[in-house]
């Protein structure tokens, strides 16, 4: 059964140095507040998994939390490069970053088979590409009926999955909607699941076949309004496109990045303080 706790408590109890951590959310519902809290609590040597590393992992990598990244597309969507990610790969700063590179289709399938308790995924993929040359975990398998050869890749089974959702009820049942990405699979593939939500409600009032994660597959649930900002939460707030563009400037040079990181994350107490510093006009309404 999910326990309602503060985000600081959830991260303190749920994420350890050296853990394999998947923070998912495909453009929508990216768990930025949780990412900041991991930085604030100075977790180290994490093996991070995420289809689209995005700003959230650029921050974690730049802050020195990661030793490995498994991913399928590492850019700043609609803007350009992830400079901290590139600096780690190209220049080993702030530390060398091992990468395990896969395609979206592969990684999505690998979460599915992780959730399904299978050791590998089978897909039509990678034929003719150079991936298998640089990732020896992209292998092949032969269909026992047709003799066709398909790609086989290892399932994703993180220690911890962290996602952001719109609502949870008092029991800790969680509802998300809109672009739901690979979040259900990430949670079900993981040993521990930490979920931040926009609001705690009496009843989910979910549609019959909505994407609901029952309380008993969730370890901790935390009320963190605007916790996906600068990404968006459908029905709550829009994407802060300006911040995504500004990030290109903030993250380009190490000094400016460190200065931002100190001021906005390491020296803030929690995500509400971060939002206030960002000048978020809604922060007063959602945090008293």
């Amino acid at each position, binding site marked *: 059964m999910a326990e309602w706790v503060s985000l600081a408590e959830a991260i303190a109890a749920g994420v350890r140095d050296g853990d394999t951590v998947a923070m998912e959310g*495909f*453009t*929508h519902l990216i768990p930025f507040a949780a990412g900041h809290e991991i930085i604030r609590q100075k977790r180290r040597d994490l093996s991070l998994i995420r*289809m*689209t590393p995005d700003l959230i992992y650029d921050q974690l990598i730049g802050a020195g939390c990661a030793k490995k990244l498994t*991913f*399928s*597309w*590492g*850019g700043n*969507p*609609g*803007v350009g*490069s*992830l400079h901290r*990610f*590139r600096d780690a*790969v*190209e220049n080993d700063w702030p530390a060398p970053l091992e990468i395990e*590179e*896969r*395609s*979206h*289709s592969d990684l*999505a*399938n690998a*979460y*599915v088979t992780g959730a399904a308790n299978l050791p590998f995924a089978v*897909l*039509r*993929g*990678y*034929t*003719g*590409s*150079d*991936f298998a*040359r*640089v990732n020896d975990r992209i292998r092949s398998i032969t269909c026992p009926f047709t003799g*066709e*050869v398909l790609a086989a890749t290892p399932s994703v089974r993180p220690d911890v999955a962290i996602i952001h959702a719109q609502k949870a009820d008092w029991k800790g049942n969680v509802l998300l909607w*809109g*672009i*739901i*990405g*690979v979040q*259900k*699979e990430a949670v079900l593939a993981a040993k521990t699941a930490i979920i931040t939500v926009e609001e705690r409600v009496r009843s989910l009032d979910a549609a019959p076949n909505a*994407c609901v994660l029952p309380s008993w597959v969730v370890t901790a649930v935390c009320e963190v309004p605007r916790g996906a900002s600068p990404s*968006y939460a*459908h029905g709550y707030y*829009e*994407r802060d*496109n*300006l911040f*995504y*563009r500004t990030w290109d400037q903030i993250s380009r040079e190490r000094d400016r990045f460190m200065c931002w990181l100190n001021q906005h994350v390491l020296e803030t107490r929690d995500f509400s303080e971060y939002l206030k510093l960002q000048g978020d006009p809604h922060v007063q309404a959602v945090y008293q």
Partner: protein
Amino acid sequence: MSSSFTADEIMTIAASRMLRNGAVCFVGIGLPSTAANLARLTHAPDAVLVYESGPIGAKPPVLPLSIGDGNLAETADTVVSTPEIFRYWLQGGRIDVGFLGAAQLDRFANINTTVVGTYDKPKVRLPGAGGAPEISSSAKEVVIIVKQSKRTFVEKLDFVTSVGFLHGGDSRECAGLTGKGPVAIITDLCILHPDPVTREMKVASIHPRVSRDTISTNTGWSIQFADSCTETEPPSPQELQVLRDLKARTAAAHGAQGEAA
């Protein structure tokens, strides 16, 4: 009604013309998304736009800035999970046309979006594959939209992220890939189609006011021109109007940030 247009405009418009009405199109963000939405707003009102984030049948009123913008979900016929998009819809064989961009490509339309330089010590670390490898292999056809330059059109790729015609000839079919592969590359200078035998991409149509010399100078291999090479139909006033309106609506909705798309 003006007949002047930019290189970007004719590139987008030429790409949009590749999408038949009713076709199901797997859309990448940026130029592919602009071209697909332009098609939907002009000659292909029943084109079905599928985004890898999950929306099926998206009809965004303005261009999305990211692959998972809220307006894609709000206007879609349905929104499924990302694994389902790749499993049931792309790999399932439901996609007619995949629209792709590219950081580097070669004469056989193989694409690199992974690294410039060596993989282990890259000079430039690019974003990586995303959905492109399986779009390249599973969509019935692929259309590539990319600005033409020596840096992009290279003799040899540093990394093959997504396959086109591999080593040319029948090497794509021999590898067991079922989709037709890249039926066109649309650039700001011209349109390339594969040679029916060698599968080398050849210039089939040159945009107005562009010289053969400019095309050759902006290509990293000795590019060939098809015997039947013609001039690209210039943008119609209606195409230009709809594209400019779409861009203006997008800028108004997203502010100056809208430019990135």
